[in-house]
């Protein structure tokens, strides 16, 4: 018996590069896995606080919440904080070392995002395309943190009414962007390693049974079937940019939008920012903050001209950016992962599915 198992393990080792085997772990044995992860990473996971679900530090397996749809704010803030200091300087004009911009040490630690949803992990892949679009000059602030981050995804078994991941090249069990995909079978998890980083963590775990793997596949299908509303993109993708831009429906779609920044700040793929210098006495810093294309000043030129001075222009731009301009510039990658946060949080209940479906005609 022992010998046979050894043989199996050896043959697996030789096939390691081709097959990454699914593993199984009982939830009440998670402490061991968490300890292994904690040796290298600070672990964060969604936790319910009142009616919100927020990313919280995890110190023990009991901290893990299994009964949630998704976090209110997306995890993009881990890699792209809302306020981030990029450069610092001594605000002393007459000093020899004054007014010289220096980058602070990139000393952010390694983080593991445990139970991140597949849509949010895919969003990180999309943001990789944006922040690292120039291999010679990637966004170092993003890249540094991205490389130090481990993503263990929790597949969705119960998508909520605003989710539509299946319409945007994503899904409740979608693997893209993850190091490990976990599928929840009530008292145990099937773990699919997807990268060498992920696989290394699971070496001590038992292989999942055929039954469990099939059960997980069944849950995936059930979850996909639960997704209530979707959106269609065929005509938007086939049409020219100008045709979509000049669609008559924008006139009726934009009117209720109050141009706040809620949708953009909650969106896991939105990435615009504004850079400013701030000084306080002899300390100076160059800081970037999340910005929103919904803001009237977003495209204001120093000349005073504003190409998107009207609400309709800004509203239209948001959707065109995600569904037309980004795929055009990023080899087909959509700027939306179907998480539904914008719809849920919008103060006037603008539904991205309704907007896109109306323009798709």
């Amino acid at each position, binding site marked *: 018996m022992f010998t046979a198992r050894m043989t199996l393990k050896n043959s697996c080792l030789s096939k390691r590069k081709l097959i990454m085997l699914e593993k199984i772990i009982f939830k009440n044995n998670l402490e061991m896995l968490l300890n292994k992860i904690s040796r290298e990473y600070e672990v964060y996971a969604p936790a*319910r606080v*009142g*009616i*919100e679900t927020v990313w919280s530090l995890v110190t023990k397996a009991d901290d893990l919440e299994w*009964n*949630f*749809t998704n976090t*209110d*704010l997306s995890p993009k803030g881990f890699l792209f904080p*809302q*306020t981030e200091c990029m450069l610092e300087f001594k605000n002393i004009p007459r000093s020899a070392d004054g007014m010289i911009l220096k980058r602070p040490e990139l000393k952010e630690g390694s983080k593991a995002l445990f139970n991140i949803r597949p849509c949010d992990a895919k969003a990180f892949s999309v943001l990789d395309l944006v922040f690292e679009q120039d291999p010679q000059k990637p966004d170092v602030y993003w890249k540094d943190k991205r490389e130090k981050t481990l993503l263990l995804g929790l597949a969705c078994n*119960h998508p*909520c*009414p*605003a989710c539509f991941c299946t319409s945007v090249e994503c899904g409740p069990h979608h693997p893209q962007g993850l190091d490990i995909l976990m599928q929840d079978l009530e008292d145990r998890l099937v773990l699919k390693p997807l990268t060498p980083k992920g696989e290394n963590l699971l070496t001590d775990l038992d292989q999942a049974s055929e039954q469990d793997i099939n059960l997980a596949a069944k849950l995936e299908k059930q979850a996909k079937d639960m997704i209530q*509303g979707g959106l269609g993109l065929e005509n938007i993708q086939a049409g020219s940019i100008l045709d979509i831009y000049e669609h008559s429906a924008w006139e*009726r779609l934009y*009117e*209720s939008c*109050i*141009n*706040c*920044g*809620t949708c953009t*700040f*909650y969106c896991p793929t939105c990435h615009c920012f*504004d850079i*400013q210098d*701030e000084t306080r006495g002899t300390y100076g810093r160059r*800081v970037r*903050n*999340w910005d*929103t294309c919904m*803001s*009237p*000043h977003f495209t204001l030129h120093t000349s005073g001209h504003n190409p998107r001075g009207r609400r309709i222009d800004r509203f239209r731009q948001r959707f065109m950016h995600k569904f037309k301009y980004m795929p055009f510039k990023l080899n087909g990658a959509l700027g939306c992962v179907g998480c539904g946060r914008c*719809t*849920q*949080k919008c*103060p*006037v*209940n*603008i*539904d991205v*599915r*309704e907007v896109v479906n109306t323009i798709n005609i």
Partner: protein
Amino acid sequence: MLELIEQIRDNARQLLEEGKVHCVIGYRQGSIPMRVQPHFAYSPEETDKMTWSCFCTQNLAKYLIGREEPTAILAQGCVTRNIAGLIQENQVKRENIYILGINSPGMVDYRKVQSKLPGRVIHEVLEENGHLLVRGPGYEEKILKRDVKRDNCYTCNHRNPVIYDQLIGEKGEETGGGNIDKVAAPWENLGPDQRWAKFQDTFKDCIRCYACRDACPLCYCKECFVDESKPQWCGKTVDESDVHTFHILRAFHCAGRCTDCGACESACPMGIKMRRLTSKIEKDIRQMFGFSPGLDTQESPPLSVYRPDDPEEFMLK
């Protein structure tokens, strides 16, 4: 409720058919449970979508600003007060609008409904007479509407429209039943350290999305102070000092004009209770100046007018 909805649609349809207005602003059913969307009907057929419910939390007066064409608007108590305020401030021309006034039943705060069902996915919410029927995977719950009303609706004193061209339904209860002076300004009796702690705690989650400002009918400046750069009054970061500056300054810009409609708190995606600031200011204005905004289209708010006999006892001597 259904009768009121029929009346709203009939009146709106008639106004458009007769060409009296270019557009009727109201609400339509939302795309997810417990939400409605602002609706703009430009033709009689489009009035078929109009609705009215306990989830109508957006203040539609906001959409009157900048409209040139004659417009009709569905408006309950607080909204009509804001309309009166906008008329007084010359942002809306009285002769350009047709107000379909309606008594407010007090709006529901969807977050309070969610907090009664922690961790549950809500698939459907039906409004019945005194309660809500909430349905989700494997459950159905009845929740009393009076337990989940929006904070400001409990202490409202003006549920009936104060100005209107046509009344939908009948005038009803004027007040929400609560005592506004018992709940407004909750930090009044605390010492400075405790007040500061409460203030920090209230605004710690603010992400500067400006949903509060953008939902507010009082905020119509072409250039908001937070967007000015010469000088820059307020930093753009989410550092505490910048967040605090924004909220305090906005509250004061609304002083003497705020009707406590609650649209700000309803709009906030983080559920921040910024009325803890404005309710104090509203109370002070009411007690010190004997003024409640929006009840008179002629009377100017106290902070925009100087009178030699203005009360001064609260000033340091």
